[in-house]
């Protein structure tokens, strides 16, 4: 039944429905309300989990390597500096094929220190071997949680998943949400039964070192698993729809895209503002549409080629910057199109860094620039709303 609750509470409730055996997380704004709500659920006996109050994010993820190896369904959540402090462990977790799920409450990276929203943290970690799914609103962040476990724990996938939601914008907003039903989630998400665990009766070694003769093949197995995940993410999204009646797309989703001349490509909560802007512009006869990236890793190459083959110009809006080479999504999209026949002009905008607001007017400004770019690209990539007067 729909209720107005804080985003963080709704996600904590979703985590509770997945019944993790071990939760290990360190406080960091704007993620803390998630771990606070989980602590209260444990303290009130509503959630039977071991909540490990670790001394740092490095230890938070390290503890889960242990718990997962011992056979526990394991959960953490972090953001920004904390995600970066986990970096070494992120590679370790994906390398050991551990199906850990982490909610990332996306926040800017320092320096300069900044606690507000952007997506530099998780986009910056795109090569560490974790699947990355991005929610457009609180309902999707809730729904992503059980789906993430179902994807991660599939024996053919066995890949950790980051369920990303924009910090503050989605963690601290109160809006109507359908909280998950624990029993329905238990049916949708079977118990975690890993094939190999630390067990004296079957004393396997986990984490041996690989020399040049085998290391490549380990990496290839991970690479192949993420390829398979493209279909698994779609299947799980559809299965979730049959059980819970909600669908926010599989690896991508589209909005008013069928006859779109100008196509916006983005991910995360800015999508809400963009949909309102599109409705406004469509009413004025401007053929603009949206293609949402729901899975950033694995990157939906084929799906994007299909969705974007007919439009006349593409505008990528993203909340990260790849210093030295434009930005994350823009890089990936252009490389995804290079060997295809698509020669549509693509222009990129980095916006909303460090929590700067993105309004409907900003979206309309971008669409104007995109229309102009159809005749010839003036600038391939720019910082939206740069305050030149303070530089």
């Amino acid at each position: 039944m729909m209720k107005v609750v804080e985003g963080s509470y709704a996600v904590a409730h979703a985590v509770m429905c997945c019944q993790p055996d071990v939760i290990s997380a360190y406080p960091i704004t704007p993620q803390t309300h998630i771990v606070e709500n989980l602590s209260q659920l444990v303290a009130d006996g509503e959630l039977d989990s071991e909540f490990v109050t670790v001394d740092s994010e490095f230890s938070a993820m390290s503890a889960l390597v242990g718990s997962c190896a011992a056979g526990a369904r394991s959960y953490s959540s972090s953001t920004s500096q904390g995600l970066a402090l986990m970096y070494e462990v992120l590679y370790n977790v994906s390398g050991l094929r551990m199906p850990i799920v982490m909610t990332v409450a996306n926040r800017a990276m320092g320096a300069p220190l900044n606690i507000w929203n952007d997506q530099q943290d998780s986009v910056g970690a795109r090569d560490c071997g974790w699947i990355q799914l991005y929610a457009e609103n609180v309902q999707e962040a809730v729904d992503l949680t059980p789906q993430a476990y179902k994807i991660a724990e599939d024996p053919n996938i066995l890949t950790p998943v980051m369920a990303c939601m924009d910090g503050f914008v989605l963690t601290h907003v109160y809006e109507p949400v359908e909280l998950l039903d624990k029993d329905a989630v238990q049916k949708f998400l079977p118990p975690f039964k890993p094939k190999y665990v630390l067990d004296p009766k079957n004393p396997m070694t986990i984490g041996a070192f690989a020399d040049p003769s085998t290391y490549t093949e380990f990496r290839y197995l991970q690479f192949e698993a993420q390829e398979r995940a493209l279909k698994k993410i779609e299947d799980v999204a559809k299965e979730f729809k049959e059980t819970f009646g909600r669908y926010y797309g599989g690896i991508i989703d589209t909005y008013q895209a069928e006859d779109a001349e100008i196509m916006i490509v983005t991910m995360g909560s800015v999508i809400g503002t963009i949909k309102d802007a599109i409705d406004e512009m469509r009413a004025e006869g401007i053929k603009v549409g949206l293609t949402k990236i729901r899975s950033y890793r694995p990157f939906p190459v084929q799906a994007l080629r299909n969705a974007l083959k007919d439009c006349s110009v593409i505008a990528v809006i993203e909340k990260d910057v790849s210093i030295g080479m434009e930005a994350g999504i823009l890089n990936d999209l252009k490389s995804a199109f290079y060997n295809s026949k698509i020669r549509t002009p693509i222009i990129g905008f980095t916006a909303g860094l460090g929590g700067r607001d993105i309004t409907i007017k900003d979206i309309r400004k971008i669409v104007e620039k995109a229309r102009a770019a159809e005749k010839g690209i003036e600038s391939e990539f720019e910082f939206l709303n740069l305050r030149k007067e303070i530089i």
Partner: protein
Amino acid sequence: MQNLFTPGHRACAGCAMPTTIRLVLDAAGENTIVVSPTGCLEVTSTPYPESSWNVPWLHSLFENAASVASGVEVTLRRQCKDTNVICIGGDGSTFDIGIGSISGMFDRGHNIKYICYDNEAYMNTGVQRSGSTPFCVHTTTTPAGKESLGNPRPKKDMPAIAVAHNVPYVATASVAYPVDLRKKIKRSLEIPGPAYIQVNAPCITGWTFEAGSTIEIARLAVETGLWPLYEMVDGKLAGVKKIRALKPVEDYLKAQGRYKHLFKKSGGPDVLKAIQGIAQSNIEKYGLVD
């Protein structure tokens, strides 16, 4: 007092931390470089484009202040400069996430004085439990609940960890005893090598006590034996502030919202006895009462 930490910082009204900082800097003087980890002090004193610091100040991350300070100190030594190098961090960065780099700094014997303003939880992120949170305190990650009486673990003994690193000067201090605090800062600067000084700095937002009573709460912590004031020089007890009129721990606990649940829940009285026991063991261990 020297004006080395200017007003206009964004600490909560009634916060003990800026008072602590002003006393530390007043004792250390302007020939001092301060390195801070992320935390309340850093966020409230350096909101770009402003800073309260009238001494050179450097911040990098939450967990590496001691390592960063080590780099500063060896460079100053190389340049034959005698500037004091002081780390000032909260309990989260000191007891938990930064303890690794602190251990390294102590172990290498740098001439760095590490001051911890201890408000006994992660206050900058909203009162979550840290290694410094005392027994059975309510925090947002160790909440009092139907099946919980708050923090299940005792406060980590950080001074003992410093002593175990053969740190030549280790002391505890309190914002309620400014003369004692300044004396200990000056003494740490006179003894070459690393030093660790842990200052009790109550947090009005996190501990929830009556407005204006911040200093009194810190005084009560000392007068009940829960915050022993002592100095360890080369690992041996070298000074203790005696408690003139010992007070029951209840006087201290009932003035704070973070202990409120102990006065309402059935398991409360036993915990109150246990906390009185902690005070008693401090009294015996450090000889706080003649």
